[in-house]
């Protein structure tokens, strides 16, 4: 039986893609990669820089191993390393991703001096009183009155939104954009549920809740339904 290659090199317009077999041992892989690189070396001479990406299938590489592969590539003059694409994720990575995706619901009142934090979206069933603060990596939904500070998209998500039944915050922050409340709130009781988001001008906008479905269609997670 003919021995199949462990390393397959494919050229695309974005550079080279190295398909690494996920059944063989890592040592074999490394050896073959090294061979391939040295034998093809002269081909690449005097050519512009080429990006090399890996597709490693169902193999799990540790950070050290990834670094090793990157070093191998870097040793070649005109190659730069792109990303390493694997089908495998570690449990911690998955947990982190899940945390960023999940909605944490909390039923309490965030009082002055208290800070409520969530990695993903935050659903607060209660009020945020002046001096209190809610912080989330994703969106913030307040079922009660928002009178304190809300900071959504803390890790830099510019698309995060904040909505509240009673929107009277002392400050709103989304990602790194900050806005403060007007000095006087107009005392009309007709205010409906409102939402805050970063508008096209890069400023925080406050509008009716209903505009969100057009502005952030990705908020819909429900699949199916009519």
């Amino acid at each position: 039986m003919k021995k199949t290659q462990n390393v397959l090199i494919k050229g695309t317009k974005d550079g080279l893609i190295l398909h690494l077999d996920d059944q063989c041992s890592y040592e074999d892989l490394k050896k073959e990669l090294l061979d391939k690189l040295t034998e093809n070396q002269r081909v690449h001479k005097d050519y512009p820089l080429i990006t090399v990406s890996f597709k490693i299938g169902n193999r799990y590489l540790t950070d050290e191993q990834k670094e090793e592969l990157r070093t191998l590539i870097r040793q070649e003059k005109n190659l730069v390393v792109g990303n390493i694409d694997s089908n495998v994720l570690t449990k911690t990575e998955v947990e982190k991703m899940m945390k960023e995706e999940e909605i944490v619901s909390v039923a309490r009142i965030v009082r002055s001096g208290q800070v409520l934090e969530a990695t993903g979206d935050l659903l607060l069933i209660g009020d945020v009183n002046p001096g209190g603060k809610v912080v989330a990596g994703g969106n913030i939904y307040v079922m009660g009155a928002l009178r304190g500070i809300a900071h959504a998209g803390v890790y830099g998500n510019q698309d995060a939104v904040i909505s509240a039944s009673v929107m009277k915050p002392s400050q709103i922050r989304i990602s790194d954009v900050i806005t403060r409340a007007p000095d006087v709130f107009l005392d009309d009781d007709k205010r409906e549920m409102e939402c805050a988001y970063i508008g096209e001008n890069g400023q925080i906008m406050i509008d009716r809740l209903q505009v969100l479905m057009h502005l952030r269609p990705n908020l819909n997670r429900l699949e199916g339904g009519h």
Partner: protein
Amino acid sequence: MGEAIVITSGKGGVGKTTTSANIGTALALQGKRVCLVDTDIGLRNLDVIMGLENRIIYDLVDVVEGRCKIHQALVKDKRFEDLLYLLPAAQTSDKTAVTPEQMKELVDSLKQDYDYVIIDCPAGIEHGYRNAVAGADKAIVVTTPEVSAVRDADRIIGLLEKEENVEPPKLVINRIRSHMMKNGDMLDVDEITTHLSIDLIGIVADDDEVIKASNHGEPIALNPNSKASIAYRNIARRILGESVPLQPLDEVQGGVFSKLKKFFGVK
């Protein structure tokens, strides 16, 4: 076995000590055995308001440090027949002279002998506050209809909710000036209670008599003709489990009526 109630507010000057003195007096008037404990070490006031200042021999710090027995430090209020006692704070030490554990032990032993131990808390949220709260079973938060006092009350309620052995706190709104509330120049009772979202246990009108009485060392609760006195007596009755309607304070009454009217759809 009695229960210990801490009277606190966060902000200074809203009437914690006055409220402690009067709730204690009102409870004694109802025939309960009451011990008032002043935890404001270094800035004691409760003895002055109770008119017991010149009878202090030992104080709280003496008890904690073992220089005397508890009953030696307790000052008896002669206006009552063996019902009302005061454990005064020390004036010469500071708050760090006592630890929360020592306070808990002290309050626990007082609870054996008294129906109610009323703990007067110092202003602030530091050591003195932690001492005062350490032995408490219940808490009463005093606020005035001012934004800053309500803000601090909110902070203190947040801290009290974290205390595992303290029941959810109750609210006293002190120094209500009904004409200002009516004009909308002062936060009104509804606004404060919805904002803080805890149960209201009493409202007390701003009354010159309170200051006069305090200066004479006679808690206003002893004077049956004052509005504030009735307010404090009502609070005491509510602590005892009676359901007493909120005092109809002039315009505050109008407020209730207008609310009723609104409820029935009459303009």
